[in-house]
């Protein structure tokens, strides 16, 4: 702190909020790591590298990655259309993008399962083509795509909004066609936002539980995600096992959280440097 501010309340507001965060978030999360030290290194290792556990990491990572990728492509298109074009129903489309934030995940789970089951509105179309979505890894991807929609759209949207026309004007004057202008001039300025949105959607997808349990069928080795495995271990009163898997997941989440915050910090610095 360089000079004392004349605005009151610094110590009390910071003190109280740190206290609240500590008892509610920091200390409880630390307990996961403390508890996992109750296992010996060998026990911990054999728990977190058990084939069924490793399979669940793979299912979680692959499905979350695919869903985040789908959301990056379609999220960019949705954000672009919402900022650049005007068309009837645009305001409603813009509002609907936030539904996955506000809708309870259990509701999303049963709705998507009904939709993609063999006799569902979409499932009955895919069935004759031999595509099985509900109760297969594809179903998990669908659920995670639903959950992740707002992340890419909402991170990319403000960046497109703040984009100045002059770089596009310059590209045109230098003789570039629209297609080339987009891919060589516009798109590169959106990379940081796209990457941030991707990471946010990916991080959320790895931890998601509510929407996935209904649609995945929960078959060990095939459609069993890591959070579900923690749940299963808890139901068998295997607290040490559940905690060990949770510790591994927490470390992955911490790394992703750090990454997204670094990205966002850099983006906001760049945006404020531009203006």
């Amino acid at each position: 702190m360089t000079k004392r501010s004349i605005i009151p309340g610094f110590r009390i507001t910071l003190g109280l909020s740190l206290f609240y965060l500590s008892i509610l978030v920091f200390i409880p999360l630390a307990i996961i790591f403390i508890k996992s030290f109750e296992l010996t290194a060998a026990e911990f290792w054999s728990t977190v590298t058990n084939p069924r556990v490793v399979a669940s990491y793979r299912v979680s990572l692959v499905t979350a990655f695919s869903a985040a990728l789908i959301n990056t492509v379609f999220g960019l298109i949705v954000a672009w259309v919402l900022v650049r074009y005007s068309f009837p129903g645009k305001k409603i489309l813009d509002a609907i993008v936030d539904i996955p934030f506000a809708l309870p995940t259990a509701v999303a789970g049963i709705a998507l399962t009904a939709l993609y089951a063999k006799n569902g509105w979409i499932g009955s179309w895919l069935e004759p083509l031999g595509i099985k979505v509900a109760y297969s890894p594809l179903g998990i991807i669908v659920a995670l795509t639903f959950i992740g929609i707002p992340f890419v759209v909402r991170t990319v949207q403000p960046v497109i909004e703040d984009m100045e026309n002059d770089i596009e004007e310059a590209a045109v004057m230098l003789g570039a066609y629209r297609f080339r202008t987009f891919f060589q001039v516009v798109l590169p300025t959106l990379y940081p936002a796209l990457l941030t949105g991707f990471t946010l959607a990916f991080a959320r997808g790895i931890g998601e539980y509510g929407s996935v349990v209904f649609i995945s069928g929960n078959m060990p080795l095939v459609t069993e995600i890591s959070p579900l495995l923690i749940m299963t271990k808890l139901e068998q009163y295997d607290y040490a096992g559940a905690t060990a898997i949770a510790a591994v997941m927490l470390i992955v989440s911490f790394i992703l959280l750090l990454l997204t915050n670094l990205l966002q910090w850099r983006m906001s610095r760049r945006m404020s440097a531009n203006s």
Partner: protein
Amino acid sequence: MAGAVSYHSSGRVQTREKHITEAPVVRWILIGIAVLFITVMIILPLGVVMVEALKKGTDVYFAAISHSDALAALKLTIITALIVVPLNAIFGLLIAWAVSKFKFRGKQVLMTLIDLPFAVSPVIAGLVFVLIFGAQGFLGPWLSEHDIKVIFAVPGIIIATLFITVPFVAREIIPLMQQQGITEEEAAVSLGAKGFQVFWHVTLPNIKWGLIYGVILCNARAMGEFGAVSVVSGHIRGRTNTLPLHVEILYNEYQFSAAFAIASLLMLLAIFTLIVKSIVEWKEQRQVKLEQE
């Protein structure tokens, strides 16, 4: 922000000249793709909830939502929200004040740490509190000595929900308060206003719309939380069941129409939340316009 991105549409409509926009055909194809994606991914699932809920007629629908177990779940959900939302709103205001009105070392780190509950899987959030308050947990022996039940009881549900929704109000109002700066507050202080007066008369009017949306969003998440609550609740019908857990129980018992009927209530809550967001955006745009004039 690993769990929510707060973005409010500015409402600006850009008119672009022909040479820096796409050909009409490309434009309509892109609009088509966007509309199709959102329709298939979001609107159809919402539609299916209503259709499934009313499949067996309105009698079944109203029987499901007025069943005693459903009412008990509704009551518990409301009690949880009534405790969780005010606490996290107060926390949000406190931390937003500290972070946006003062400079201090480690601020960036603190802002990252607020997001921890977003980054953590809800199942892990539930597990954490089982490890603390459960029978085998750190405080387990002490709690059972004093005959206090936290896990598989209402307090556990409330604590897990508190954890999950910590960041919501803070995340909505921090950017707003940072944007407002500190000049108005400094002026108020130099005119002799005391701490709480400054907040009440100067800061609050500037952030009230953001605060309202933060509270409504926090409420929607508190009422809809599933994973964390599922771990700590014990699923005792009529006692420790919230609405989302009730949906799961009915669904697993193949009472699909009843499950979707309860789900439709939660869906209406989500739609209500987004309507509030639209109103808040509209008010914000009007405020910006008034300030510019």
